[in-house]
């Protein structure tokens, strides 16, 4: 159970496209790494060592510093049985906790239902990006989805301000719940008011916020900054979610340059986010999960890597007991699974840890089973 007085908050950063775990947390002294990566390999002398066997990608300097401060749990060899190498399907599996059948309820949607069963706060769950990821979807659970915090809101596409104000004023009256109009209309009214209320509250966040941290460019940095803004505004949000640009980690070709840039940005952004929260005395109740749908093929394809299985995830924050969790999968030929790293811990165990030991929920009905937890909280 959490020991903080403030409500625990979970932030999720999804690295879309399948991050190459092998070049993220690198088994730099393993000759099998050398053999399998003739072209897509980080030279040993550039690796930021964690120990004599593995180390961080050289572009992850900020994350390495956080790691040295004990703020980063590295979850090695994470995956699930019978890995699926389709982006969409594998991401679906991570979202719904259903590797066998196709399901439509997301794990965080269920968590939100448990966190706020009476829907007291329309902002208990907030996604940054267009469209709500399935992880956050559950029937009847309101989730605000914000494409741009500065302009987010109802009818913001009406450009002229006076005209927009007039339309919103009319909107708030039209959607005021009126009884006896039939279930569907009443449901729409309520949803419209939820949206308007959520937008009104969210709109207050940027104005309350100032920070010495200057985030980098790109949408991940912008959205992580938005998450810090909303978190610091104390709007009661318990789950934040955002996604790196669609399939950006899908490095089939020219991986060395692309992957370096991706991690330079993510590492800096995660550190900026952490320091920002720290500056606002708001880091003690936040845990950040960084995950991807699968790792990549052990052997490179000449300029990039193809879809693989077992990968790496990170859990970051003040409440986190930093260190290495689970085991680094073997690179020996006979231990690989169809040329991919063999997972040794189920992502649903990671989720269970976050749900039970951080958010204080019963994990079993959310992740559809009992899975071994990791002791990083």
């Amino acid at each position, binding site marked *: 159970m959490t020991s903080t007085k403030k409500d625990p908050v979970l932030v999720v950063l999804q690295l879309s496209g399948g991050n190459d775990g092998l070049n993220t947390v690198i088994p730099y002294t393993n000759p099998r790494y050398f053999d399998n990566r003739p072209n897509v390999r980080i030279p040993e002398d550039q690796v930021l060592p964690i120990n004599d066997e593995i180390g961080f990608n050289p572009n992850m300097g900020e994350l390495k510093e956080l790691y040295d401060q004990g703020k980063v749990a590295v979850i090695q060899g994470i995956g699930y049985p019978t890995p699926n190498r*389709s982006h*969409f399907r594998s991401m679906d599996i991570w979202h719904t906790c259903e590797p066998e059948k196709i399901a439509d309820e997301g794990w965080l949607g269920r968590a939100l239902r448990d966190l706020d069963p009476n829907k007291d706060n329309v902002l208990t769950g907030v996604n940054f990006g267009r*469209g709500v990821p399935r992880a956050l979807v559950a029937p009847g659970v309101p989730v605000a989805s914000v494409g741009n915090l500065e302009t987010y809101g109802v*009818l913001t596409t009406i450009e002229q301000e006076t*005209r927009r104000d007039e339309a919103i004023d009319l909107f708030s009256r039209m959607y005021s719940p009126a009884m006896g109009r039939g279930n569907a209309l009443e449901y*729409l009214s309520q949803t419209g008011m939820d949206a308007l209320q959520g937008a009104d509250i969210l709109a207050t966040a940027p104005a309350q916020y100032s920070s010495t941290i200057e985030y980098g460019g790109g949408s991940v940095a912008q959205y992580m900054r938005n998450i810090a803004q909303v978190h610091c505004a104390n709007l009661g949000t318990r789950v934040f979610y955002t996604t790196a640009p669609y399939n950006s980690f899908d490095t089939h070709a020219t991986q060395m340059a692309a992957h370096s840039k991706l991690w330079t940005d993510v590492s800096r952004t995660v550190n900026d986010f952490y320091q920002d929260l720290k500056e606002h005395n708001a880091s003690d109740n936040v845990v950040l999960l960084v995950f991807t749908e699968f790792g990549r093929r052990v052997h490179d394809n000449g300029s990039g890597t193809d879809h693989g299985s077992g990968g790496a995830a990170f859990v970051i924050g003040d409440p986190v007991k930093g260190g290495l969790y689970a085991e680094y999968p073997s690179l020996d030929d006979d231990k690989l699974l169809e040329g991919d790293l063999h997972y040794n811990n189920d992502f649903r165990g990671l989720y269970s840890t976050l749900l039970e030991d951080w958010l204080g929920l019963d994990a079993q009905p959310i992740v559809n089973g009992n899975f071994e937890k990791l002791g990083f909280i």
Partner: protein
Amino acid sequence: MAGTDIALMAHLMRRAGFGASYEELERRAAVGYEATVEELLNPEQQPPLEMDVLLRHFVDWKQINGLETNQAHWTYRMVNSPRPLEEKICLFWHGIFCVGDSKCMNGRQILLQLNKFREHGLGNLPTLLLELASDPAMVYYLDNQMSHKDAINENWGRELLELFSMGVGMDGQPNYSEDDVKECARAFTGWTVGNAIPRYPFGRHEALFLYNPRDHDDEDKTFLGETGNWNGEDIIDIISRQKATARFVSRHLYNFFVADEPQVPAWQNTPPRDMEAIKLLEEEYFRSGFEIRSMLRVLFNSDFFKNARFAKVKSPAEVVAGTLKLTGEYTRPKPGLYEVAQEIRYMGQDLLNPPTVEGWHTGTEWIDSGTLVERLNFAAAQVGDTDTPGVQSIIARLGEEGQSLTPERLVEGCLEMLGHYQLTDDTYAMILGQAQQRGPAETASDDFSERVAQMLQFIVSTQEYQFT
């Protein structure tokens, strides 16, 4: 021409297509309702969508594979096809016979399946089911290539019965047993694919349906009480004769074209909201020899259909395609089409990639606070753009009515131009109150366009506009 005729035509075109401009509604109303129904039911009498020019602009449409490309292509078809019902029935079957890009990873294969729905979607149900059972995307999506005579995989066999033809039950009774599922799966052993569908590692070849007699279970099966050495075709014949199938197809047609029904899993124990209507459709199903076209002819010409105005929540595809038809902005290839097609995804309907084999939940389940904001902001932006040909045409028509429009007439005129929308008394009074604050609209004045656009924005922001 009477406004009532145009209002009815607007209703028909919203349901049997994706809406129509006021000019098209007038033209069709002049032809007549029943004649228009016949035209819609026989799409092959209209020319197909002209693609030559398009292919020069969107060269990737020659060999469509990616999901976003497919979605843009379909959006364009919804807006521009001279055969509106062909696209609508394709969407209807796509929402039932679900195959998802998340598993198939081959948009082209799903496009080929959609083309089957375009070709056979209004035709004979057993023919359509046979096309489906031998469709490579479907075989792969439901794992039938993994179903062998000595080790059946029940996935396809079960979903064929549960989700594609009969439904789990009706009138409180189950429609089939677990044994029927197994026997059905046995009959479809040997129905497989050549060239496995995922791109890796076999490349982007089109998949091929194969029947492998050596892997077919050639023994007797007892299915729904009938015993014989059934193959897949026999199973489809038996299914098509079931009362449950008549009920299931009728309810789906009613849910999609007439009024929102409860979600499909509730159908075993929840009676249809209009049993009389369902009975009419069931009778036509058997009378016509399982023809979807005949059932729809009964449906569109019925009072229960004509009276069901605004009884359904629009699907995201209907919101986007309907709005684009109104603005007339994408009647030609134009940059921005791909982006605008993505709005359908943002509103919760990722075309060619339904969330599960059960498809999208419809009705009010389309709407949550995230998707509602997407709907409102999209529609308000589109109708507020006075540069689009559709909005300009609305402004011009209302401007021709005289020197000045009363606030009442401004509201009424805009409601008519959007397709004779109806508002509840409360909403109407609020919008009228807003219009009255600015007094009569002088049609020659500089701000007339702006007043019309504002009124259109008010209307598309209502709850009522979310209904079709």
